[in-house]
C-alpha cells in the first residue's frame, strides 16, 4: 500500500475508528496467530499419538518344546524369554508351551535349581515355534 492510499485521519471514510481498536490488544492478528499455533500443535499431537499407538502394537507368537536332563529324563523347569514377564512351567513329561512371546530373535531361558540355561530362538508372528528337545544340565547348582 502506498503512502498516499493508506488510511488517513483526514479521511473519515477510510480510517479505522478509534472505537474499533481494543486498547488492551492493539494487534488483533495475534489472535489469529494463536489459533494457527493451536491448530499446528493439535495436528502434531494427533500425529505423534498415532505413531505411539502404531509403534506400541507388538506381535506375539509361542514357543513349545520338551525339557530333558542329560539322561533324557523329563524336567519340570520354568521357561521364559529374557525381558518378558510370562513364565511357563513344564509338565511332568517335560513339555511346555510358552505363549505371548514377542516376535523376532529371543533368548529362551530354562530355569532350574537357581540356574537359567539359555538358548536362542526365532519367534514368528501368531505361530508356535517348536524348539524340540531341550537338554539341560541339572547338576549345575549355585547358591
Amino acid at each position, binding site marked *: 500500500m502506498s503512502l498516499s492510499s493508506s488510511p488517513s485521519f483526514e479521511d473519515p471514510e477510510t480510517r479505522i475508528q478509534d472505537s*474499533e*481498536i*481494543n486498547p*488492551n*490488544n492493539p494487534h*488483533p*492478528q*495475534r*489472535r*489469529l496467530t*494463536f*489459533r494457527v*499455533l*493451536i491448530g499446528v*500443535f*493439535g495436528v*502434531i*499431537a494427533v500425529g*505423534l*499419538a498415532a*505413531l*505411539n499407538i502404531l*509403534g506400541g502394537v507388538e506381535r506375539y507368537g509361542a514357543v513349545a518344546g520338551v525339557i530333558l536332563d542329560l539322561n533324557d529324563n523329563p524336567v519340570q523347569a*520354568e521357561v*521364559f524369554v*529374557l*525381558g518378558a514377564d510370562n*513364565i511357563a512351567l513344564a509338565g511332568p513329561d517335560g513339555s511346555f508351551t510358552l505363549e505371548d512371546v514377542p516376535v523376532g530373535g529371543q533368548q529362551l*531361558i530354562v*530355569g532350574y*535349581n*537357581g*540356574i*537359567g*540355561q*539359555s538358548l536362542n530362538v526365532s519367534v514368528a508372528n501368531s505361530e508356535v515355534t517348536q524348539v524340540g528337545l531341550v537338554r539341560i544340565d541339572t547338576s*549345575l547348582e*549355585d*547358591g
Partner: protein
Amino acid sequence: MRKQLRRLSRGQGAVEYGLLLGLIAVVGILAVQLFGLSVFELFSRVNLVLGEGATSDDGSRVLFSSDFDGGLDDWESVNWNRRSSDLWFTEAGRLVADRYSGIFLPDNTFDDFSYRVEDVDLSITSNSWHGASVFFRADNSSRIDGYSFRVQRPNRNDPGRIYFSTWANGYQVNPYIARVEAPEDFDWEGTYDLEVVARGTTLQGYINGELVLEAEDDTYSSGSVGLYSHSGSSLTADRIEVSSLP
C-alpha cells in the same frame, strides 16, 4: 469487515492460553515416549539431577550412600533361588549378611553410575559357595532381574573367580556374561573394596580400585542395587555408595 475486525480484536482468552500450553505439553510427552525415553525415566533423571549429593571435583555426584549407622530401614531382603533369609543386620556400624542373605534397595533407579561397597570382609561358614555378589541395574528383589558382579572364593576344586552375570526372574543366566579367575595373589583373608561401573552397555568390575573384569551387555539399562552373601559365607561391609559418572 468491521465485525470481523471487532471479533479479532478481543485478544486471547485464558482458554486459548491453556489449550496452547496443554498441547505443547502433550506434544512433549508423546515425543519423549516415541523416542524411547519414558516420562517416568525422564522425571527420575531430573529428580536425580536435582536430588541429593554435591558434585565432586571430577564432576561425579553421590546419588545414594549408607554407612549403615542408621540401620537398614531403606532395604529389603533379596530372594535367591526361592530361598531367602533375613540374616542381615548392622553391628558396630557395619552391615552383616549371613549365608543366603542379601539386601536390596527398592524404589531407586540408576542408569549410568559407579556402585562401591567398601571394606568387604568375606568369611567362610560352611563347605559350600563362598562369595559376595553385588547386584546392580536390578529390579524385583523377590525374583531378581538385573546384573551381578560376583567375587567367589576358591571352592572345592574351583579357583577363586570373578563374574558378571545376568539375572532374569530370579535365575542366574548361564552362560555368564564374563568370568575370569581371581588374581593369584588375591588376599582372600583381608578386606577389600568392590566397585562396579556401568556406563551404557559397558560393565566394569574393580577390586581395590583395580580393574579386574570388563564386559559388554545391553540387557538392562537401569535399576537399583543390592548385595548378597552366598550359601557358604558371611560378609560384612562398612559403607555403600552410588555415584553418577564424571
